[in-house]
């Protein structure tokens, strides 16, 4: 039906529509290439393998956080607690660096805490059907508050970002390959494989596409959602550890500025806020696009806040474009 309708309006437009709808990653990579060309034109010689390494290193934590948004958005949800959880993770690990168990203990504590946050989110969304936006927003208050309390109680103990995390977050092998790929590649592979090849991944799409159909097919969506929000919180914690390593900073507000970019990267990557459509491939490119875009803004000598204005405008434009091409009528 769509094919018939489109052929009347000219092949080029139809092909563009279809591509943007079915394989958004192709135009996205094109856009990324354009941005790289632009930055090279603005500052000749800047694009080198080392530059690429730095860009990838900066994109990785953002891609993970955007992964949280991608997975939750596939079901028609969103996770606004990721920034709080990520900040908490980096900060608490840093304060536990001198504890008997050392870094390992810190990381375990942080992952358990994150899982608990995710569990509450999942129960709120899946069992009590409170809007995901509100549930995760409320939990971000709770996490922020508790992290602040923790901060005041541990203010006297020695704290610092453990060297292991610094290496993980900011190390670059041979000036080109970021160390954090060690974490990211398996994680990304697991997400992409999980979405395509497992029953659980299929159910995320199913619930987001049509919760009524999923229910009528025997899916108990609360089970899926509880697990989902726990996964999301764990990923947020991992991203937080990497960011604190990357910036060598432990602060309870460290990741706050990445919340909106995480949603932006997922939306740009072609994941629909309505659910049922999208994937992690596009999200990764989306994270790269945002990182290169801020690099470009810096190279052009524009003030840093321009980033936000541009990011915001891009979200609206891209979301509107997706809404247009994916609505059948």
């Amino acid at each position: 039906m769509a094919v018939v309708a489109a052929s009347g309006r000219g092949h080029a437009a139809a092909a563009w529509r279809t591509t943007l709808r079915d394989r958004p990653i192709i135009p996205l990579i094109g856009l990324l290439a354009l941005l790289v060309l632009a930055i090279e034109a603005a500052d000749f010689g800047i694009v080198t393998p080392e530059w690429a390494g730095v860009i990838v290193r900066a994109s990785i934590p953002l891609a993970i956080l955007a992964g949280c948004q991608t997975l939750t958005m596939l079901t028609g949800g969103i996770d606004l607690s990721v920034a709080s959880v990520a900040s908490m993770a980096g900060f608490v690990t840093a304060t536990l660096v001198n504890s008997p168990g050392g870094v390992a203990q810190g990381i375990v504590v942080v992952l358990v805490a994150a899982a608990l946050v995710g569990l509450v989110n999942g129960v709120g969304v899946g069992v009590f059907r409170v809007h995901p936006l509100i549930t995760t927003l409320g939990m971000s208050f709770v996490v922020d508050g508790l992290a602040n309390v923790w901060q005041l109680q541990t203010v006297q103990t020695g704290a610092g970002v453990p060297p292991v995390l610094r290496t993980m977050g900011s190390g670059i092998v041979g000036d080109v390959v970021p160390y954090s790929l060690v974490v990211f590649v398996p994680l990304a592979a697991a997400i992409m494989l999980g979405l395509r090849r497992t029953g659980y991944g299929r159910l995320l799409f199913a619930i987001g596409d049509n919760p009524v159909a999923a229910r009528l097919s025997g899916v108990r969506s609360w089970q899926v959602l509880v697990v989902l929000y726990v996964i999301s919180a764990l990923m947020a914690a991992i991203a937080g550890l990497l960011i604190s390593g990357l910036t060598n900073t432990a602060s309870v507000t460290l990741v706050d500025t990445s919340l909106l970019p995480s949603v932006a990267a997922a939306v740009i990557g072609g994941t629909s806020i309505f659910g049922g459509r999208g994937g992690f491939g596009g999200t990764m490119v989306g994270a790269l696009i945002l990182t290169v875009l801020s690099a470009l803004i810096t190279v052009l000598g524009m003030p840093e806040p321009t980033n936000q204005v541009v990011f915001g405008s891009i979200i609206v434009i891209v979301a509107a474009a997706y809404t247009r091409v994916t609505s059948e009528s």
Partner: protein
Amino acid sequence: MTALAVTTRRHNPDLAEWARRDSWTIGLMVLLALLLGFTKLIQPNYGAFGIQGLGISIMPLAFAAVAQAIVVIAGGIDLSIGSMMALTSVVAATQMEGQSGTFGVAVVAGVLLLGIALGALNGALVVATRVPDIIVTLATSFVWAGLALLVTAAPGGAAAPWLMSLTTGAFLSDWLPKAAIVLVVIVAAIWIPLSRSRLGVSLYAVGSDQLAAFRSGVAIGRTKVIAYAIAGLFGGLAGLSLTASTGIGTPVPGPYTLQSVAAVVLGGVSLAGGRGGVFGPLVAVIVLQLIQNDTTFLGIDPNYALVVQGVILVGVLILGSLLESRRAG
């Protein structure tokens, strides 16, 4: 026949109807009274001075909550309010600095118009792009925040002296903070005529049941744009009161977006739209502020206030969902 047995209460029908319809608000006011009593108990010299402080401190969030309430009643949500406040606040502070009082009045008018324009743009984007409210306003929140930082990178500017004196101190009695009077007068002057007009009724209609509203002859798109524009006006007022209470403009958004959503939900406005008013959210703002004050008086880490807010927000919604499902069947 039961179908005909429409209850009519001849004795004082207005009071009974009010009690039934506004039971949530009444409950909230009882909670407020209890909290005030509790405050007096733990802080015996809490008095006129404390009330004056309360009056000033609630003002920005109170206006933000009214703005949020209007959009939510009309079936939307505005995640850009905090950023809008930052933008209007810095514009006001930078333009007023070192200028005459009369110019200050012009600035106030200009800032309010700016707020209306920002809000109308939100609404127009929602209607024209058909992108969900959450995404559009999330995106514009980036834009407004970026613009605020472009206006001034650091907190600065100054409020006109008359603006500050308008909101500090008391009027007639020590127990009547000027800020509270200004707040109530402005909200009442806009909300009461609005809620009694056909436009006000249309806001509820669109939020409550779009199909029935359409069939009743309401222009859905236009009504939504107007709702966002009015919210923009209150966003501007919130920004102005930030400037008035701090004396400067701060380009970084405070936690007002999230808190305004919390206040609206606590204030008995249904996130599904069509239900509630602005009075409930105002009371909720006072309650939230008093909780924060009391934790300080009790020597508890004020960050717990944040935790409490998050717990209340999620708790109230879970309770609401439980009640709803019990009623449904």
